[in-house]
């Protein structure tokens, strides 16, 4: 960790470039399937393999999804944008050039608002641009040879470039998380770094605090998770600050993050010069995004995470922090909202989703729909708690069983005999028994040891076999013990 002193002398300036794969059925310029996980070179054709004489044809869905993202990020959607060729040699690039956008990208400007912490105002991170491009294939390096899989070649990507507005590794992490939430909410991308459909490179520099001039920019690559990104940026900031304090100059270079060593090191000096010789792609017409198209996409926009958060706070009385937890994943927020019509107690629904549901999802490692019962069933369970048919604790037991067996709420409660007893006379009897058997403790309680109340409650519950309505126990015990 950089020392507090170093942090106050210097300021970190960070920009992120994120490549996100678009959720289309087929590739960007050919009809091959974009499905993940197929055997190598099984989703290929002459076009995405760069065979002689083949030509690209734009998949229109790509344009729609990119516009949707551009609108969500408050970008200006260019009515006319063009494709360009980025030329370089590498085995995973079949044509020897990548079709991308250069001079005239689809989306310009824009911003993301990062939710402020503890009620603080949101932090606005500006974007430079969002543009379309195709992905390359994948190299696999073995000891004695390298293999190329072209399944990924030609998949549609958007490249989202931020201004260097980020000031810490933590902010960078927050930016990535918000961007990921947005692309998932919009169903524009899966946003999965581990699967490789959401990739991030960072540009990191430092400068004396108060200076307006930018320091030498270091590009950091090879970060495969949010944690890697934060750790790599953290390391790089520290490295640069230490270098500057030691009087060294920062080399403007590309460095790779090594997660095992938790360090960055410079990439091997390039054998191939990086003059990409960009020129307009002659095989593709300019991309037209007329007002009618943009308006049509805007009309079909799903609600964004920020909009949901605001709605939860303003209309449902949920705290900002809780709203963030609930909206971290669209499926979770949808699940929560599905409970609301069934369960009138918003607070209970929110708590349940944030604790029981989220825990089960994380523990099982599965998708929400696989890990927990449908919202209707869980809603029914919570309704039983509302009606005091079962205790909250009993509901937790029931929930676990429902997740395992797939049975409905009523069935599980009946099978496990979880219905709680609210019969006052039965509970009163149990209370009397407990108090009579613990006269010393009763005296202590009456003498001032308030904490013993919980002990009595526990004892009564034990006598009742765990099935008494705790509210009723409380009421009756208080009556018997008198006020203190």
């Amino acid at each position: 960790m950089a020392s507090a002193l170093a942090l106050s002398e210097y300021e970190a300036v960070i920009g992120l470039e994120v490549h996100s794969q678009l959720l289309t059925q087929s590739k960007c310029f050919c009809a091959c399937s974009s499905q993940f996980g197929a055997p190598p070179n099984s989703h290929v054709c002459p076009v995405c393999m760069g065979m002689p004489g083949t030509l690209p044809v734009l998949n229109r869905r790509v344009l729609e999804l990119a516009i949707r993202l551009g609108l969500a990020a408050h970008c200006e959607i260019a009515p006319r944008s063009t494709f360009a060729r980025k030329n370089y040699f590498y085995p995973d690039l079949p044509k020897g050039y990548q079709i991308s956008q250069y001079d005239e990208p689809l989306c310009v400007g824009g911003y993301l608002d990062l939710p402020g912490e503890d009620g603080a105002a949101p932090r606005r991170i500006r974007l430079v641009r969002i543009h379309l491009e195709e992905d390359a294939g994948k190299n696999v390096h073995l000891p004695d040879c390298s293999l190329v899989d072209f399944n990924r070649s030609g998949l549609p990507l958007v490249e989202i470039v931020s201004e260097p507005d980020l000031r810490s590794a933590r902010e960078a992490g927050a930016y990535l998380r918000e961007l990921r939430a947005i692309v998932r909410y919009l169903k524009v991308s899966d946003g999965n770094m581990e699967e490789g459909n959401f990739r991030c490179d960072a540009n990191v520099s430092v400068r004396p605090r108060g200076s307006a001039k930018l320091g030498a920019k270091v590009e950091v690559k090879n970060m495969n998770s949010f944690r890697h990104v934060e750790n790599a940026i953290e390391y790089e900031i520290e490295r640069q600050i230490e270098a500057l304090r030691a009087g060294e100059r920062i080399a403007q270079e590309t460095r790779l993050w090594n997660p095992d060593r938790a360090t960055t090191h410079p990439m091997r000096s390039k054998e191939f010069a990086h003059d990409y010789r960009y020129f307009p792609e002659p095989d593709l017409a300019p991309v037209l995004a007329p007002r009618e198209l943009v308006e049509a996409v805007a009309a079909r926009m799903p609600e964004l995470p920020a909009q949901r958060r605001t709605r939860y706070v303003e209309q449902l009385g949920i705290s900002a922090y809780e709203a963030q937890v609930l909206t971290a994943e669209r499926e979770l927020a949808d699940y929560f909202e599905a409970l609301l019509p069934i369960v009138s107690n918003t607070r209970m629904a929110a708590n349940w989703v944030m604790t029981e549901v989220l825990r089960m999802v994380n523990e099982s490692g599965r998708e929400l729909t696989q890990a927990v019962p449908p919202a209707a069933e869980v809603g029914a369970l919570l309704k039983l708690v509302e009606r005091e048919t079962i205790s909250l604790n009993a509901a937790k037991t029931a929930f676990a069983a429902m997740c395992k067996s797939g049975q409905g709420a009523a069935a599980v409660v009946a099978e496990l005999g979880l219905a709680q007893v609210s019969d006052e006379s039965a509970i009163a009897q149990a209370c009397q028994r407990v108090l009579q058997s613990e006269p010393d403790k009763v005296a202590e309680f009456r003498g001032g040891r308030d904490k013993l109340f919980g002990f009595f409650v526990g004892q009564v519950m034990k006598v009742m076999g765990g099935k008494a309505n705790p509210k009723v126990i409380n009421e009756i015990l208080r009556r018997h013990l008198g006020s203190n």
Partner: protein
Amino acid sequence: MADNLCTLTITEAQQLLRSGELSAHELTRSCLERISATQPSLNSFITVTADLALAQAQAAQQRLGQPNPPPLCGIPLAIKDIYALAGVRTTAASRILSNFVPPYDATAVARLREQGAVFVGKVNLDEFAMGSSTENSAFGPTRNPHDTERVAGGSSGGSAAAVAAHQCLSALGTDTGGSIRQPASFCGVVGIKPTYGRVSRYGVIAYASSLDQVGPFTKTVRDGAIMLRALAGADPLDSTCSAREVPDYERALSGEMGGLRVGVPKEFFVAGMQPEVEQAVRAALQRMEGLGAEIVEVSLPHTRYAIATYYLIATAEASSNLGRYDGIKYGLRAEAGNLLDLYTRSRAAGFGAEVKRRIMLGTFALSSGYYDAYYLKAQRVRTLIRQDYQRAFEHCDLLAAPTAPTTAFRLGEKLSDPLQMYLSDICTISVNLAGLPGLVVPCGHDRQRLPIGLQLIGPSFGEAVLFRAGDAYEMAGAEAPQARSR
């Protein structure tokens, strides 16, 4: 005993095939025999596909027995070896693709195949269509049937020679800077370069993406109209291919030229032009006037920048298009211990000298620091050239001009100085830069009986007027170098 069936035109063969006087098999066999007899002296073919041709002829014969067989059913054609023909070696006349067999057809080829045409083989070209003489082929030069000491022209020399020698009834070529028109002129056949975007480029090995165009060589203008109708039209596999409706070009062949205003661009009569070429072209213009056309002089002032503009844009696009030939996925792969060597050795061994020259020139024109001065500037001049033609077409329906400054030159004559070779493209190259259609029809011979071609240039998608004028000129008895009983 050789017969003369292969000397038929498409129009004539269509009639005979339908009347039953001729079978598809007989016609194909006649061409295959002519190929065997003349291939050694001409070297027009890279791959002869006799088995395929005979099988296709058999299938075609079946269809000819049914009502309304397609126009090209049973017609033997040769295909420039730059078009992908599924299952058949497609080399682009290059060592780097000498073993490449595509699993797909070019769209143009597929359309011909659908009509039941017969493919007799893949014909020779300058490597990757880069050249004006077919001397840049890795498979040896193609010789001119009128004089085998001379070139057939380029880059579609094999296609032109094959038609001129009656090895087929028509052949597909491509034209990027004149590669159909100039060989047509040198070999005394009809050649058509349609408007850019009229015919799909899918499956045509790319040289210069914004200039390449598919077109046929034929013996008559009418045959050319038939071929273009079969080839043209929208293709979902090519974003640059126009969806504009394809006219019935044969209907345009009214047989007369009355009322047509023909512009003559004065800049195309270059200094140092072969005098007989100029004479033949001017005589052709007089003939056209005699047929009712009005001849007017026009100016295309930016013509003198056309060659430089072309050799910047075309080579720039080519340097990028040829980046895929890297020894990794298909084609020639040299022995190497590391990636850089694999690239450099495969490409050094696989590409010929002219191809390397153009890749280097194009890479330079696009490189950082030079892009604005060369590539971008060239695109701006291209717009000026286009505007020259637009202005000219305000005053006339088509233009008429020489096709090349000379008739066919000797083999080896222009190889020592590549720039000399480039300069001979002066009459054809600006047409590609403007994306316009051009048609060449024979209009005479020089003293050595070498053919001279008259070039007609039309406005965008104005192929119909070219066919009309070309056909009227041809029908009026312009000297036909195609002696039918050769």
